[in-house]
């Protein structure tokens, strides 16, 4: 039990890689990911839990990385959009977003991809209504949600086929 406004040693696994950094307790998880370990795929929008752009997975569950302190991830596993797939090896969800035109500017996309990846693990065959509920915490300001919903339904099909 260490108490200090001074830096704390953090050890956390992000996308399968262990990172160790000394950080201030007030550093948000979103800032840790972007500034300390330079994974800038996680986007920062509102910084108060409304927009969903910064959503990542902690131990497989979707969380707002702007509403957690990085020190709280001690010993946990974080997955960011970089951990879902690679440019030449897209995950089924990423591939479906590509095919169904589920993104335009791409700002909201990483938060939606991580959220949807977790959602399809627990609900592999969702209805359209369930998809809309699942992404209700992610704001998109350009494409509109129709293609995003199409992409999630397509991703579900792809995952079931594979």
């Amino acid at each position, binding site marked *: 039990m260490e*108490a200090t406004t001074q830096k704390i040693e953090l050890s956390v696994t992000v996308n399968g890689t262990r990172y160790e950094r000394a950080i201030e*307790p007030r550093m948000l998880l979103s800032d840790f990911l972007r500034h300390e370990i330079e994974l800038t795929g996680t986007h920062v929008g509102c*910084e108060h*839990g409304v927009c969903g752009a910064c959503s990542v997975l902690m131990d497989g569950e*979707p969380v707002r990385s702007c*509403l957690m*302190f990085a020190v709280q991830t001690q010993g946990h596993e974080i997955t960011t959009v970089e951990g879902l797939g690679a440019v030449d090896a897209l995950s089924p969800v990423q591939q479906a977003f590509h095919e169904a035109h589920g993104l335009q500017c791409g700002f909201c996309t990483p938060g939606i991809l991580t959220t949807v990846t977790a959602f399809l693990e627990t609900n592999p065959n969702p209805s359209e209504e369930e998809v809309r509920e699942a992404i*209700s915490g992610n704001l998109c300001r350009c494409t509109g949600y129709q293609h995003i919903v199409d992409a999630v339904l397509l991703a579900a099909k792809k995952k079931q086929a594979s």
Partner: protein
Amino acid sequence: MKPAPFAYYAPTTLDEALSLLSEHGYDAKVLAGGQSLVPMMNFRIAQPAVLVDINNIPDLAYINAEEGGVRVGALTRHHQSETSPVMARHAPLIYSTMPKIAYPQVRTRGTFGGSLSHADPSAELPTLTTTLDAKFRLVSQCGERWVSAREFFLGLYTTALEPDEILIEGFVPELPPRSGWSLQEVNRRKHDFALAGVAAVLTLDESGICQDARLVFLSVGDHPMYAERASNLLKGQALTPEAIRAATELATTEEIDPGDDIHATADFRRHLAKTLCQRAIEQAHQRAQGKQ
């Protein structure tokens, strides 16, 4: 949009956490799910000098059926309540409301005890627990006490909690047979805080007369607004449209205190509360008769 510096403690036992709160008093805040506290810290509306993170204390997350009700641990995540068959069976009003609270990513982290201790007058859990006559166990180094929901919520973000206390669990009584319940609310966007809302529970006797009733409003006062007189007015009555209208009228003209803000005027909130109250009583009545 970055929090001010603070000292961070992550105790692994309740005793350590209570000792820290006793030592730091009003300078310390308990960090549970953080889904209200962290945004306030990001905006620097809250600048606690000390954070006591209770997430590493084991055995604070549970939903257990007991004689007469359900016991819910402080660190129970909203997502757990939303998917718990025990909650569905013993506290269906809470279970069915969970999906309305914020968004999936917030429900992963947000906690039962955190929402109650934060006491946002627009939040659902303070209103639901007041409606269901729940009680909370508050623990400090000096001992523990049980406080009823009705005595716990005192005002805007203000509760009966002393600075050295933690709300450790709640007990939610099960509704008796021939009971019905309802939560009605209006939001600008689904999952947002409600502009106005109301929860109702009713219990009928064998001939269909209302034996017990509780109406509690959210977002139309600085804490969950228990409309005691209107609730009493329903007791002993057949729930005719006239009786429902009379109780609704009394509750929404005399027992709520809506305010103006950028989202809605006080008058509009009162108007919503009136329509919602009538619907809530009607739906609870239907359920009590086994019709839904």
